[in-house]
């Protein structure tokens, strides 16, 4: 069962086409998406660097989290809203994008990592809240967070390039991973 029907349905919307073809709106939304990276990944990096014991070592982890993470959330909301609009503007191609698919998987993994930290690892935070260098498990989630979001930035940037698009000749593995519809490929 593929979600292609959903992308096709979005593609029939007049607003989707209008957004894709708009002279200023699309670049404006994409620029907002990129600039919000600073607020989202940038401020999250500050929290992760604290958890790694690399920055703000004399500030309790709870202080950094409570004070900085609300801004991270603001950045995340902007990322999601602009990201959904960017998908809405170009639904079918993005749905088949190998890069977009990797990106979504990485976001899911990053979310699991965040939930795991929030509900498991941070349970005994009082024991290491003031530690300049927190325990290994804490540092590992912080490192995983940085790694996953860096991959998200990488794959996100690559969506713009058409190397693996279904309308070009592709090796079998790309056709599989991208979920290209063979009949469509043959007619192009």
């Amino acid at each position, binding site marked *: 069962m593929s979600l292609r029907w959903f992308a096709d349905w979005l593609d029939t919307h007049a607003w989707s086409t209008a957004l894709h073809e708009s002279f200023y709106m699309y670049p404006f939304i994409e620029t907002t998406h990129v*600039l919000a990276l600073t607020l989202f990944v*940038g401020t999250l990096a500050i929290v992760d660097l604290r958890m790694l014991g690399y920055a703000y070592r004399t500030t309790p982890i709870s202080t950094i989290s409570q004070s900085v993470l609300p801004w991270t959330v603001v950045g995340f909301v902007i990322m999601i809203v602009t990201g959904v609009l960017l998908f809405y503007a170009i639904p079918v191609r993005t749905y088949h994008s190998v890069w977009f698919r990797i990106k979504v998987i990485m976001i899911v993994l990053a979310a699991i990592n965040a939930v795991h930290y929030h509900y498991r690892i941070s349970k005994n935070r009082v024991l290491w809240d003031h530690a300049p260098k927190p325990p290994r498990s804490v540092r590992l989630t912080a490192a995983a967070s940085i790694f996953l979001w860096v991959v998200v930035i990488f794959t996100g940037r690559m969506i713009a390039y058409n190397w693996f698009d279904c309308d070009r000749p592709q090796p079998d593995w790309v056709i599989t991973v991208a979920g290209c519809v063979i009949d469509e490929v043959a007619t192009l």
Partner: protein
Amino acid sequence: MTLLDIFERLEEMWIGEAIRTSYWLFPFIEAIHLVGLALLGGTVIVVDLRLLGLTLRSRPVAQVLLNARPYFILALLTMFSTGIPLALSEMIKLYYNFSWWVKISTLGVAILFTFLVRDRIVTRHDASRVTLGALGLVSLVLWFTVAGAGRWIGFS
């Protein structure tokens, strides 16, 4: 020799040539540039929001700044070491690109402002809250202009 001649010479250098003839190099360097942007933005934002009294209010401004500074400099170095090769690959396009000129001139102002004005005043510990807030606001406007104009290079 005109400025355009200099830009043409720079574009002819091997490094720009290598990036232009490669399939992957430009996107790859560009992606690292974006990772650098995230870190640069984060280190700028956390300090400026503190100056505006919007985060880490229980911590002294100088402490917030000095802890972020090594990562701000690391991010700046990442931006330069990726941004210069990217620029060298398309100097003539950039010569005619208004967004790039906005970005580069604002970048110069932002760097000077950050190191010579903002950081000096903040680490002197005697500035008023209004002064600190103004420094944070100016810094945010400058750096977001650099980033926004930078993204717009690709659209114009």
